[in-house]
């Protein structure tokens, strides 16, 4: 089973080249995206905002002017709705930011526009990026293009579904615990979480600031690399962005596809292949490992002994940071205000009670609790120490000569709508293989590795800090090996 058709069979680099040479117009590409957006949105609820006239005007400006010289000239891109845009609302999937239009744009959005990309819309997401299914959106759940009775994953489910449904060739999402890689896996596309600090967070609405990072989604490894190359790099407006050369990521992907994986050492952590892994996911992962070995890679057992601590650690640290970051939504500076006649505190409480959904309230409560007197040391301090142990596991593995690590992206394929909403911790377990990379700050990519019972399965490649080039090389080698070429 191959799933829905992609936006265009050509690589993004070829699309942009066609626009630069005049062989293709940016307007034609934008019209294709907009023609698909409406029906796809009606069927799958994957967009929260779009402005076709503005999109076409941006495309026309590219066709008419020197802007078409950029590396993403005319390439239609969708943005997760937690990235600030000055021409479309930025709601974060929340009632508390309903109709909010940012007075400035995120650095990644400015870089996309400067590279010639054409923004076609803002995508549906779990409220404030809190969720693994996109069911926590205040604007209704997004649906999986492979099976509309199932979730597309989350929290960047709208972005993953927009790529999978062929509306756009690429989209931006954001990660805090796996919110790009997990929906990529469940929706059958490629999803990248860069190293913490690789991409500016300026204009990304904050959830958990020590974990948040913008990522890319696309149909192929090379396309995901092409978009990351544009948005990555130090930004003076984000003190946590790192002044580390980005390098030739598309070239690294090309090398992986052309040269195979000879000389590459892939670590295989057995902790990630134990109980709880669906049979179909396990079988596809074993197939991916065999394909990488056939392409010349050396497979080596490694141990990540603190993997089991990842979910509880993440669900202490992320809510703690969220409870602080979301304190700003109080009915004073943004969005709606409810019950001002009840006094200042009453207004705060009623505005937040009506503006936030259940999952956001749950995480604010959890975070407030673990930071409160008497519980800070018991939970938050110990979680920070567990985080260090998880980071040390990766340091030891990469220090022992492993170039990259392979794991499943998600323990299951796409699950049914409503199947996990009544059991928050069961939902949180969707992040078991992805949250470790966020906690350690390392990059990761999910690559489609086949189907199980007609649903997509993703395999994850993890690399050392700022080793995105290695990650893309290995991921492209895997992609090529599975396509039948080694």
């Amino acid at each position, binding site marked *: 089973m191959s799933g829905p058709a992609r936006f265009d069979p050509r690589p993004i680099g070829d699309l942009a080249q066609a626009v630069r040479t005049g062989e293709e117009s940016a307007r034609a590409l934008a019209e294709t995206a907009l023609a698909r957006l409406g029906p796809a949105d009606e069927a799958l609820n994957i967009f929260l905002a779009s402005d076709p006239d503005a999109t076409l005007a941006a495309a026309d400006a590219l066709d008419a002017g020197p802007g078409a010289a950029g590396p993403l000239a005319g390439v239609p891109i969708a943005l997760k709705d937690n990235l600030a845009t000055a021409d479309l609302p930025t709601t974060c999937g929340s009632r508390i930011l309903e109709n909010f239009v940012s007075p400035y744009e995120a650095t990644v959005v400015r870089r996309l526009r400067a590279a010639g990309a054409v923004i076609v819309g803002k995508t549906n997401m779990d409220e404030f990026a809190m969720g693994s299914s996109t069911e926590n959106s205040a604007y209704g759940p997004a649906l999986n293009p492979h099976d509309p009775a199932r979730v597309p994953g989350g929290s960047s489910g709208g972005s993953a579904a927009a790529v999978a449904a062929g509306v756009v060739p690429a989209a931006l999402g954001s990660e805090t615990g796996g919110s790009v890689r997990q929906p990529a896996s469940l929706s059958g596309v490629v999803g990248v979480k860069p190293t913490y600090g690789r991409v500016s967070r300026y204009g990304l609405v904050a959830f958990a600031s020590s974990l948040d990072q913008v990522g890319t989604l696309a149909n192929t490894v090379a396309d995901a690399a092409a978009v990351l190359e544009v948005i990555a790099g130090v930004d003076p407006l984000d003190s946590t962005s790192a002044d580390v050369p980005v390098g030739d990521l598309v070239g690294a992907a090309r090398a992986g596809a052309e040269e195979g994986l000879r000389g590459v050492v892939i670590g295989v952590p057995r902790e990630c292949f134990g109980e709880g892994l669906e049979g179909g996911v396990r079988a596809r992962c074993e197939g991916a490992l065999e394909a990488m070995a056939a392409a010349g890679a050396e497979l080596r057992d490694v141990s990540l002994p603190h993997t089991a601590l990842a979910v509880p650690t993440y669900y202490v640290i992320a809510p703690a940071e969220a409870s602080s970051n979301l304190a700003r939504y109080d009915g004073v500076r943004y969005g709606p205000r409810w019950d*001002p006649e009840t006094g200042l505190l009453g207004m705060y409480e009623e505005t937040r009670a009506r503006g936030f959904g259940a999952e956001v309230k749950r995480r604010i409560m959890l975070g407030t609790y673990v930071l409160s007197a008497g519980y800070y040391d018991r939970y938050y301090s110990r979680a920070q120490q567990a985080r260090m142990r998880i980071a040390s596991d990766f340091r030891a593995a990469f220090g022992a000569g492993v170039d990259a690590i392979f794991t499943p992206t998600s323990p299951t394929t796409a699950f049914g709508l409503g199947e996990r909403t009544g059991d928050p911790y069961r939902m949180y377990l969707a992040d078991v293989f992805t949250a470790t990379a966020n906690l350690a700050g390392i990059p990761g990519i999910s690559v489609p590795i086949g189907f199980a019972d007609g649903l997509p399965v993703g395999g994850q490649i993890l690399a050392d800090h700022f080793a995105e080039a290695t990650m893309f090389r290995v991921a492209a080698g895997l992609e090529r090996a599975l396509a039948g070429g080694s």
Partner: protein
Amino acid sequence: MDDPSGRAAIGRAEVLRIARLARLRLGDEEVELFTRQLNDILAHAQEIADAEPDASADAEPYAFADEEPARGGAASLRLRDPSAQPDPLVAGPEAFAPAFPDGLFAVPRLEAMDEDRSP
């Protein structure tokens, strides 16, 4: 409140206290739901809470290429270059603030806050 094993068990009163700290008004059904769910979630965090403190694991997990890995705490925070100026806003606060009369963010009277604090 704590149970006899020393493990935290959150009751209804604790949930209401946390909600007050978090500036959230909860309905009765939410109080009941969050009491159950927070206990469920924290039960899974017990392995972390029960671990022996380990000061050697206090370092920050980030590795910036231009620096030694930083230690935790405020001293490890990197500050933004003060010469970096954000983009000019395309719209002022009056475009998105709930109440912005005379160039000021307006809030309910402070006296009302004092009333809310009374028992």
